[in-house]
């Protein structure tokens, strides 16, 4: 008024006010947060896609079909750097076989092959002749004698220890009371060790231990003497056991040898050679002090060119679980999703119908609602334990598809029920009233003029819920998932019901196994991201399917 104004002022000139500052600030904040979320999501997807795509599109051809159609295998990496070749087990052994055949054929083509073969035949015949029962008995008796001597020494040491415990205990800085338990522990451990070393004796050792067990547990000086006596006696009877087992072993070797000459192939030969080598190592244990080994050495010498022809050097670095594919896991996940979806939708929709259409408001209904809400908040590992306790242990379904289905279904039940109830409530009351007014019973009304129209909503939310649950590892790790299974779900079924009682591999659990249960390296990382990539595709697939389904149904029933 009094001074000349710098700017022409009209009533709508902006003024700086508190509200205006707030407005600008809040707008910026909201936009920033939204962009942050977007950035995180984009980063996640980019990470999985970029790293996973490597596994999917590696190798020859556009798509690495092996990854999608094979079982998980060990990865064999041959060579280094630029020249490295990655082979899954099956391919690696195929390559090895091929090379072996090549080598074998070259060997067969040489001039002295026939000569060597005859030599081998003669040598093995000679050695078979030498393996008489008498020789075996002699050798075994010698072995037992030696073992007995060693064991007696050990036993005497401990017997002495117990007898002179007062002096000895002080040497070892142990108390008097501790001596007897220590002796019995030693004896138990000793029997365990003997069992492992001498497989042939295992049954007898177990029997002996079972017989003497009470005495070993409550060791006294008297007991110790008795046990020692019994043990020596037991060892004296053992040679018969050895003989029997050895004879069986010898027969097997002969059969393999004959097979080799009748079929003539590297595979048979390989088996024969293995059997002979194994035989020789066992036998050497018995015949250590035997001077008459000339026949045996002859045989070994004759074998060597054959063995050499069979040995293919294909040095590789091996990485468990990093080769092959994830086909069984894809199949398993699909099975789990479909089954869990069916169970949860049936259960959930029926429950939702009851709550939305039949349930009068009351204490019971509000309790049910509260329970459902709480169920939604239970951590997935708890569902896993619940499924393990109820289905796997109590109902004795073992680790099986059925147990996994029900566990997953229970986990998504709250989502399905809430979504279905929401969908049912969104159906105009008018449909219900007009249906009833036309003389429909309540169930007819629900069946014909509520449920069909609510179905799009129910299906979309339920399928999305189940797809999310399909990614959970915790509920299935105790109930349905195997880390590795060589059969596909439809293989090796004796009866059709077996289908439901078998465990399967599953993608989320596979990701867990390859990222937490095995040594980590670049090759397992490829596997992890490849699996995650496929899993992402699967979830996107399920989600788009459900959306397509919804759109179709919506088009059919629009109001």
């Amino acid at each position: 008024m009094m001074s000349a104004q710098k700017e022409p002022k009209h009533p709508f000139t902006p003024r700086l006010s508190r509200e205006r500052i707030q407005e600008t600030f809040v707008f910026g904040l909201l936009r920033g947060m939204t962009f942050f979320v977007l950035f995180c999501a984009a980063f996640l997807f980019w990470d999985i896609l970029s790293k996973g795509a490597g596994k999917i599109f590696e190798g020859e051809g556009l798509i690495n079909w092996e990854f999608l159609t094979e079982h998980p295998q060990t990865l064999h990496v041959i060579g280094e750097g630029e020249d490295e070749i990655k082979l899954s087990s099956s391919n690696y052994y195929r390559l090895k076989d091929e090379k072996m055949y090549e080598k074998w054929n070259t060997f067969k083509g040489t001039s002295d092959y026939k000569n060597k073969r005859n030599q081998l035949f003669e040598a093995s015949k000679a050695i078979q002749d030498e393996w008489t029962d008498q020789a075996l008995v002699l050798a075994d008796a010698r072995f037992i004698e030696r073992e007995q001597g060693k064991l007696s020494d050990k036993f005497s040491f401990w017997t002495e220890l117990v007898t002179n415990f007062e002096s000895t205990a002080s040497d070892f800085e142990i108390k008097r009371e501790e001596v007897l338990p220590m002796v019995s522990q030693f004896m138990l451990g000793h029997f365990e060790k003997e069992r492992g070393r001498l497989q042939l004796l295992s049954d007898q050792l177990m029997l002996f231990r079972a017989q003497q067990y009470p005495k070993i547990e409550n060791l006294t000086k008297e007991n110790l003497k008795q046990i020692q006596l019994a043990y020596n006696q037991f060892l004296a009877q053992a040679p018969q056991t050895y003989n029997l087992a050895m004879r069986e072993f010898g027969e097997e070797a002969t059969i393999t040898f004959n097979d080799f000459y009748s079929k003539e192939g590297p595979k048979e030969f390989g088996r024969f050679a293995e059997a002979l080598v194994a035989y020789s190592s066992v036998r050497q244990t018995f015949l250590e002090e035997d001077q008459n080994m000339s026949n045996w050495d002859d045989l070994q010498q004759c074998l060597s060119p054959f063995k050499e022809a069979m040995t293919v050097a294909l040095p590789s670095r091996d990485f468990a679980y990093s080769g092959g594919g994830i086909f069984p896991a894809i199949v398993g996940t699909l099975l789990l999703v479909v089954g869990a979806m069916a169970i949860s939708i049936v259960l959930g929709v029926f429950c939702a119908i009851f709550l939305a259409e039949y349930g009068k408001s009351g204490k019971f209904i509000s309790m049910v609602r509260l329970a459902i809400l709480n169920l939604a908040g239970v951590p997935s590992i708890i569902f896993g334990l619940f499924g393990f306790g109820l289905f796997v242990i109590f109902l004795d379904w073992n680790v099986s598809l059925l147990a996994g289905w029900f566990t997953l279904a229970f986990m998504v039940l709250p989502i399905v029920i809430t979504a279905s109830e929401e969908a049912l409530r969104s159906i105009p009351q008018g449909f219900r009233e007009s249906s009833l007014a036309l003389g429909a019973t309540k169930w007819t009304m629900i069946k014909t003029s509520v449920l069909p129209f609510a179905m799009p909503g129910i299906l979309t939310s339920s399928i999305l819920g189940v797809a999310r649950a399909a990614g959970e590892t915790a509920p299935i790790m105790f109930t349905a998932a195997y880390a590795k299974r060589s059969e596909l779900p439809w293989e090796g079924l004796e009866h059709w019901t077996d289908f439901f009682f078998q465990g399967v591999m599953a993608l989320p659990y596979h990701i867990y196994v390859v990222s937490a249960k095995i040594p980590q390296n670049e090759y397992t990382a490829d596997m992890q991201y490849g699996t995650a990539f496929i899993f992402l595709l699967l979830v996107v697939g399920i989600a788009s399917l459900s959306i397509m389904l919804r759109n179709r149904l919506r088009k059919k029933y629009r109001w």
Partner: protein
Amino acid sequence: MQEAPTANPENSSSENTEEYREPAIRIKELDFLYGNNQVIHNVTLDIFPKEIMAFIGPSGCGKSTLLRCLNRMNDLVEGARIGKGSIEIHGVDLHDKSVDVIELRKKVGMVFQKSNPFPKSIYQNVAYGLQIQGVKSKRVVDQKVEESLRKAALWEEVKDRLNENAYGLSGGQQQRLCIARTLAVEPEIILMDEPCSALDPVATGRVEELILELKNEYTIVVVTHNMQQAGRISDRTAFFYLGKLIECDLTKKIFLNPSKQQTEDYISGKFG
């Protein structure tokens, strides 16, 4: 049969009917409550066969509730109950234990305020009532659908697109479709809850014409906010206020010479 109470003046001073007629619906001293909230107070009213009875009154006066009592749609509402009195159709108390509400609703059809065809084809909408009754024969259903649509004066408009979604129809057509759907179940009585309140004047006209035609075969009870409409279509009019039946008489008389002050005030627009 006893002499009808005061709410049935037709009997004594009828201009067009001389003889006594058996009422189609007889409401006796009805009290109706939602929980503890009484919404209908001691209503006694007879509705005669093949007449159009209009219920008028301001919002919340209980006219819709009374209408919905007539085919027990109020069963759906939690806490709704009869306090005392009875509703009889063919001399049978509707709230008797032996009455099957499903059978009742087949005989007493209802058309709602908001046209609410099912989101299905026109044909399926009309056939719905038959199909839920288990009529399987395609021929019977076809015939009935056509007959109902003709009665509802909709056949000519929709006969070429019976399989299209009912929501492709205009508002008035949808409402007539709902009437056709009701007719297909062969009711005796049709209850209409403000059937034209969502329609434009032209569509309203068509529906009103239709209602007048249907009068020849059906007993019709119409709830309406539109007093002109009541005047145009109804034979008799009942005026409700605060849950009480204030007056029930020939429409002409109600509009020209009501016997109660309240009725006159309402009709002339002093309140409501």
